[in-house]
C-alpha cells in the first residue's frame, strides 16, 4: 500500500503513453468492457459457430429471394411434389411451388416474428422491472403482484385463445398479413416479459444502493437520468442474454401456433406453416416436412448456443 502511494507521488505526471515511451514497450489499446466480453465470447466455439450459421441464415433470407428468382407463389400442377433436383434444390410442394423459394420467404417472416416479439417482451420487461426496482415501495409491490399473476397464466392455451378470437377482427382492420403478424408478435411479447422484469428488478434493487448512484444523486442528476443512464447500462448483460434466448423461444412459439393451424394464413409461408401444410403429404413428399423443420431447429439451436456464449461472456458469475 505504501509502495503504491510513493510511486504515485514520485511520478505525478506519468500517463500510459509517456510510460510506454520511457520503458520502450509498445502501447496496447486500453481493454474495454465490451472488448473483454467479445474476447470471452470468441473463445466459446459453439457460440461462434452458432453466430456464423445464424448470420448466414439471416443473409440468405434477406437477399436470397433477390438472387434466387423462382416464384414462391406460382402454382404448377405438372410439377406437384417433385423430389429435390437441380432445378428445384429443395423439391416442390403439393401445388408445384418451389420449396426453396417458399423457405426463404418463410424464413423472413419467422425471423421477423422472433425479433419483433423479443423487442416487445424485452422493452416491457425492462420498463416494468426497472420501475419496480427503482421506485420500490408500493409501486414495486403492485408491479410484482402483476408479474406473479402473468407468470401463473397458462401461456399456450391463452395464446391459442387470443389468436383464435381476435384473428378475424384484426384481419379486417389491417389486412390478412399484417393483422395476423402484429397479433402473433404482440401476444407472444406480452405473455413473455415476466422473467426479464424479475431479472431487471433484482439488479436495480442491488445497484441503486451502490456508491456511484449516491454520487450521481449528490451532484444533482435527475432521477430518470440516474435510472436510464447510470443503472440500466449495468444490467445490460443479463438483458442481452435473455433477449437472445427469447428470439428462439418466440420462433418456436410461432411455429407451434402455425402447426396447430392457429398461426399465419396459408398464403404466408412461415416455417411452421410450411410444416403444417406438409404433414399430410409426409409419406409421398418427406422433404415438405424435413426442410422447414430443419430450418426451425437450426435457427433455434444457433440462437441457444449464442445465448450460452453470451452468458459466459457477459455474465461470468452465472455460468451454467
Amino acid at each position, binding site marked *: 500500500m505504501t509502495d503504491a502511494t510513493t510511486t504515485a507521488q514520485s511520478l505525478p505526471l506519468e500517463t500510459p503513453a509517456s510510460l510506454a515511451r520511457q520503458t520502450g514497450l509498445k502501447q496496447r489499446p486500453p481493454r474495454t468492457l465490451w472488448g473483454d466480453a467479445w474476447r470471452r465470447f470468441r473463445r466459446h466455439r459453439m457460440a461462434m459457430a452458432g453466430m456464423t450459421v445464424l448470420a448466414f441464415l439471416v443473409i440468405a433470407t434477406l437477399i436470397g429471394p433477390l438472387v434466387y428468382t423462382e416464384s414462391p407463389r406460382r402454382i404448377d400442377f405438372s410439377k406437384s411434389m417433385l423430389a429435390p433436383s437441380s432445378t428445384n434444390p429443395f423439391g416442390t410442394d403439393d401445388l408445384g411451388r418451389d420449396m426453396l423459394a417458399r423457405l426463404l420467404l418463410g424464413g423472413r417472416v419467422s425471423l421477423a416474428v422472433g425479433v419483433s416479439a423479443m423487442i416487445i417482451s424485452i422493452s416491457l420487461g425492462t420498463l416494468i422491472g426497472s420501475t419496480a426496482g427503482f421506485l420500490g415501495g408500493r409501486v414495486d409491490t403492485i408491479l410484482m403482484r402483476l408479474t406473479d*399473476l402473468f407468470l401463473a397464466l397458462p401461456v399456450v392455451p391463452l395464446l*391459442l*385463445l387470443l389468436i383464435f*378470437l*381476435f384473428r378475424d377482427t384484426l384481419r379486417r382492420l389491417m389486412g390478412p398479413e399484417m393483422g395476423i403478424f402484429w397479433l402473433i408478435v404482440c401476444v407472444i411479447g406480452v405473455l413473455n416479459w415476466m422473467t426479464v422484469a424479475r431479472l431487471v428488478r433484482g439488479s436495480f434493487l442491488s445497484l441503486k444502493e451502490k456508491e456511484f448512484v449516491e454520487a450521481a444523486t449528490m451532484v444533482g442528476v435527475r432521477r430518470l437520468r440516474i435510472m436510464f443512464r447510470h443503472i440500466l447500462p449495468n444490467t445490460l448483460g443479463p438483458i442481452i442474454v435473455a433477449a437472445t434466448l427469447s428470439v428462439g423461444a418466440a420462433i418456436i412459439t410461432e*411455429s407451434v401456433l402455425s402447426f396447430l393451424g392457429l398461426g399465419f394464413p396459408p398464403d404466408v409461408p412461415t416455417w411452421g406453416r410450411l410444416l403444417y401444410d406438409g404433414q399430410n403429404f*409426409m409419406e409421398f413428399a418427406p422433404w415438405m416436412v424435413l426442410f422447414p*423443420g430443419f430450418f426451425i431447429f437450426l435457427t433455434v439451436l444457433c440462437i441457444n448456443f449464442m445465448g450460452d456464449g453470451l452468458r459466459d461472456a457477459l455474465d461470468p458469475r452465472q455460468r451454467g
Partner: protein
Amino acid sequence: MGLFILRRLIISVPTLLGISLVIYMVLALAPGDPLAQFAADPSVPVEVRENIRQALGLNDPWYIRYFKWLSALLRGDWGFSFASRVPVLDLIGQRLPQTLQVLGLAYLLSICLAIPIGVLSALRPYSLFDNIATTFAFIGFSLPTFFTGLVLILIFSVNLRWLPFIYDSTLTVNSWETFIRQIRQMIMPITVLALFQTGTLTRFVRASMLDNLPADYVRTARSKGLNERAVVLRHVLRNSLIPVVTLIALGVPTIFTGAIVTEQIFRINGIGELLIRSIQNSDTPVIMAITFIFAVLVVIANLLADVIYGLLDPRIRYS
C-alpha cells in the same frame, strides 16, 4: 412450516381469481358469438335465438356473468359443453387419464435420464462425455416437439413400419398382447416429450452440481477419507438436487403445454386435443375449464416448489 403453507395458500387465492378474471375478460371482450352457428342457420328464427340468449343469460352484463360463472365453478358446476351437451367435468374426466399416462411416464423417464447424465457431465466438465451430453441437451431443447414427432413418424411408422402411426385410446389393457400394443403406441409420444424435457433438466443438474463441487463441505468430506462415490452421491448430489427438485415441480405446466402439440401429432384424444377442438368450435365452457385447470396447475406447482425447497433446505427459514 404449516403456517407458511397456509399463508401461501391464501396468497394464491387472489392469483387464481385474477387469472379467472383475465380468461373471462378475454372471452367476454372477444368478437364472435357462441350462437353464431344458429345465426347462420335460416331454420332458427330470430325470436328463438333471442330466447336462447335470454335463457343462457348471455344478455346480462359481463360482471354478472362472471360472478355467476365463478360461483357455479366453486360449487362444482362447470357447465355443459356447447358442442357435445356433456358436462364439462365429465368430458375432462374422460380425457385426463390419457394425457396423464403419457405425460407422467415421459416426465419420469426424463428425470431418470437427466440426473445421471447431468452428474457424469459435471464430474468431468468439458470431457468427451460432457461435450456429447451438452450437444444432445442443446439439440433436445432446440428441436421443436412437433418436428421430432413428425420425423419419428416418418422413420418408424412410414418407412420402417415398426410402430403404429395413430394412438388408439380405446385400447384396454387386459392381456399380454394388448399390453405390448399399448407400449408400442406409447413409445413415440413419450420419446418426443422426454427428449425435450431431458435436455433442459440435464443442463440444470449439471449446473447445480458444478456449483456445489468446489464447496468447502466437499473438501471436508474428501479429507476425512470418504471414497469418491460417497462424496458425490451422499454429499454433492443431495445438495445439488435441491434446486433441481423445485425445477421439476415448476416444469409440470410446461410439459402440459408440450402435450397439446404431441396429442395433435399422434392423435391422442387427451386434454390438449380437447382444448384445440373446443377452440375451433368456440366451445366456451370447455375452453374456460381447461385454461383454468392449467392455471390451477401452475399455481399448485409454484406452491409445491416453495414447500419442497423449504423441506429440503433447512437454511431457508420462513418468517
